[in-house]
């Protein structure tokens, strides 16, 4: 689906810009975990992404019961979550 693909690219760019990452947006593996072994983000980044997402897409991220946030499982999962919840 082209919308999802372009949203994925857009979210990748948002992450790289918000977090000042060394990685280029197109280098982020859409299936790789964003935290820990994948892109290596941490809890400071999670808040930063939550902030960027609320500004850009007009909704709030929230914790699942576990700290193991399913929506941060990968870029693809995050983009899908944004697609479903965006108001802006």
């Amino acid at each position: 689906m082209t919308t999802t693909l372009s949203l994925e690219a857009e979210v990748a760019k948002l992450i790289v810009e918000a977090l000042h990452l060394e990685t280029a947006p197109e280098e982020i593996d859409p299936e790789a975990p964003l935290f820990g072994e994948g892109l290596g983000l941490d809890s400071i980044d999670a808040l930063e992404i939550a902030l960027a997402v609320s500004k850009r897409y007009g909704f709030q991220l929230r914790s699942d019961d576990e700290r193991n946030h399913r929506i941060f499982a990968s870029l693809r999962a995050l983009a899908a979550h944004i697609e479903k919840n965006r108001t802006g």
Partner: protein
Amino acid sequence: MLPLTSRTPEEVIFHRGDVPVTVRRFLAEVASLAARLPEDGPVLNFCADRYLALLSFAAALSRGHVTLLSADRTPQRLADIARLHGARYALSDTEVALPLPVLAPEAEAGAAAPNPAIPAAMVAAIAFTSGSTGEPRPHAKPWGALVAGARAAAERFAVTPGTSIVGTVPAQHMYGFETTLLLPLQGAGAGHAGAVFYPSDVAEALAAVPAPRLLVTTPLQLRALLGTGIALPAVSAIISATAPLADSLAAEAEAAFGAPVLEIYGATEAGSIASRRTLEGEAWSPYPGVAFAIGENRAEVTVPGLPAPVPLSDVLEAAGGDRFRLVGRQGDMVKLAGKRASLAGLGKILSDVEGVREAMFLAPEDLDHNPRARLAAFVVAPGMSATSVVAALRGRVEPAFLPRPVVMLDELPRDEVGKVQHKDLAGLAWRRS
């Protein structure tokens, strides 16, 4: 001897969802969990649910088992702590594969149970700092010190018995442990059990508990709360710790949430030892019973219940009466996300990476006031990329200290006597901001 809790039986000590837990019920649940515990401690406690973290701590304490507190739930870190400190079992509500029995604590009320008496000198918990080498360093907490700290905090912040305490800090981080578990256990107020991390979680958690409400948080999370512009239910006060709060952020928070913003100064080694209201000026007031000895380049603090004065890694300056100002940090120590490291120590770890010829770390000037600031690394490593440098460091240093940006250089800029030019490096790292 000091009782497990100073609260009276009918007081509410915690809110689990919409269920208020009275002290009577808590004590019964402690007794029934304590009866299920293995013969010997120490116990590794990494419960995410704040009530289960408290219940587990209290049950272990009543059995004479020392609790090892790890806010870091990565299996590697937990296994290190367990191995180095002889943990016999773990209590957790999340599954982690560890080379020791991991029990899930359950809140089961049995028969009414007494309030156990605990020797004041008994080591109740061990908290850990990591330093730059990553090796966890233990800091023993006698029961008497924890009790004194909680009572001092209740007095300092005038916490009433009916105050609801919502925290965004892990229950096993020293600040979270003291302010969200021990405060209700030995001071006043009722904790909130669930996971609270994102701004929307904070708003929901506050809405779920009765007023007055106390929010226990960090500069980073305050910034996110303000940034998203989320509306919060009325709070009576906001407490922040782990890093000094910028005046501008405190002013914005006071205006947005209509409550005083207070800060705690502390260290894992000493616990919470002073406080201030950010907007009233930069001087800190020691907690009742806490005494600071401030020297030229060295300060130490005497804390009720701790056997010896504790040296601090900050440089302090007397500010009249018993108050003091924070001037900076000893040597090249930096603090990020509530964790400390030495820049030279980090540089050494990076220089030891295969393929790296030379490397150093620098902190941005606003490190202490910008909650999202990161360290920069400067690396001479022909054939390596910034990404591969970060990949090599992962697992060797705390994630918060992973450098951003990583500046790859042919050589480090030096002056005619060979001294590395920090100013030039800083220009390379932070020119964009």
